[in-house]
């Protein structure tokens, strides 16, 4: 079983708990072992950079250092913001000796040292690259036939640009959904921001962004929105009622983690992946 240094991130301990349990279940089913980092700390999401950039990189580096110490090569994050932070900090550590020195001075206080040698990826990338779409498809026992899914990439999974990848119109999420037997819809908002980082600080702007996303998904007849990030998921799921109040709409579209949809398709018991009865009947009603 290939092992991965798994960094769940803070959201997965509270609001994103269903993401956590479904990520672990699906990984196991696919033959991957996610080993949670020991004593990891918050990576700061989008909230440290406004205060101190070096502190932001240092806090992320502590997690990278713990991962390096574990002897594993792969660092996996299920949260898009954690992923972006870890990815870029790791690459700056490789490129900038001066930055690395500053950070390592601070890390000494916890008897750690970082080199920037981890291969940092998001969970969805690990599934697609290391297991492969074909392998995943072979394991599908309960195809999500007829289920129209809006693949929601959001921002930080695809941006900033890392290499030469398509940041405007990525396709891998659609590929994964098709392998599960679902029907990925096309819609313009798939990489548009949901405003998650603004929900507390600028609620008006955030709700406007959620509204536009919901509108686009619903207009294109999605049955469910699939996410790859706890912040997106919570933002789009939980604030629908507030959007409805604010804009006089009546959205009630379910929002699920991509790992939950994978879990259903792979035949994992729904309650082990945090899928309630209403979600399940939705996924199955379209099969008939």
């Amino acid at each position, binding site marked *: 079983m290939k092992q991965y240094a798994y960094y769940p991130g803070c959201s997965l301990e509270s609001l994103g708990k269903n993401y956590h349990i479904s990520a672990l279940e699906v990984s196991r089913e696919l033959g991957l072992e996610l080993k949670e980092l020991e004593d990891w700390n918050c990576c700061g999401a989008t909230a440290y*950079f406004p205060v101190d*950039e070096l502190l932001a990189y240092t806090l992320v580096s502590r997690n990278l250092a713990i991962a390096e110490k574990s002897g594993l090569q792969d660092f996996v994050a299920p949260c898009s913001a954690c992923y972006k932070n870890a990815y870029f900090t790791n690459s700056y550590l490789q490129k900038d000796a001066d930055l690395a020195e500053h950070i390592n001075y601070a890390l000494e*206080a916890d008897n750690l040292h970082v080199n920037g040698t981890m291969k940092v990826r998001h969970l969805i990338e690990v599934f697609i690259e290391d297991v492969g779409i074909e392998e995943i498809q072979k394991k599908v026992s309960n195809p999500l036939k007829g289920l129209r899914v809006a693949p929601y990439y959001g921002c930080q999974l695809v941006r900033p640009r890392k290499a030469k990848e398509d940041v405007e119109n990525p396709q891998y999420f659609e590929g994964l959904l098709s392998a599960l037997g679902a029907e990925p819809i096309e819609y313009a908002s798939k990489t548009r921001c949901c405003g998650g980082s603004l929900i*507390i600080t600028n609620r008006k702007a955030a709700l406007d962004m959620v509204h536009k996303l919901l509108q686009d998904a619903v207009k294109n007849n999605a049955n469910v929105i699939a996410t790859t990030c706890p912040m997106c998921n919570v933002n789009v799921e939980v604030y629908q*009622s507030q959007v409805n109040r604010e804009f006089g709409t009546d959205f009630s579209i379910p929002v699920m983690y991509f790992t939950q949809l994978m879990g259903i398709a792979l035949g994992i018991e729904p309650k082990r992946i945090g899928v309630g009865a209403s979600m399940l009947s939705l996924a199955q009603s379209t099969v008939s």
Partner: protein
Amino acid sequence: MAVELSFSKEIENIMYASHGKPIKDCLQCGTCSGSCPAVEFMDNSPREIIGLISADFKKEVLASNTYWTCASCYHCSVRCPAGIDIADMMYALKRYSMWKGEFQEGLIGPEFSESFVKMIVNSGRSFEPLLAATYLPKFSARDIVQEGLMATGLVLSGKMPLLPKKVKRLKNLQRMVRRIIPIGETK
């Protein structure tokens, strides 16, 4: 006598070196503003704010809500033909205004960021509900988060009983943070 840096130079200096090209390369093409999902809530569009910085309009920039309205979505950054990382420039502006202690009245962002950092220094982990409940009562953030918790079934009987986990080596983590920024006593 020490040379006083221009405002545009100061901003350039606090953007970390790997973050794309300097803002003086801006062509004022407006691609950033056109890509921005939050632009209608900003006092100045991203293009305008860059123009103001280049012209050293420090007061106007510090009075603007633009960077506090930025969602850090990097849409502008990946599209800028001049290779400027506008999203990270927005972070740099937030830092600058926090350092100067100057920002538009009524903004939640500065206090939120500071509270967030405090929380990490005190526990090593963050916990959105607690953060909102303890640090931001005056912004009625508690109600926002309460609704969120109810919808995810995480709150029982209307209370907010959950606490964040703490990192085990908290003392070490706090020493580590102190090696970066001077902070006062922690709880």
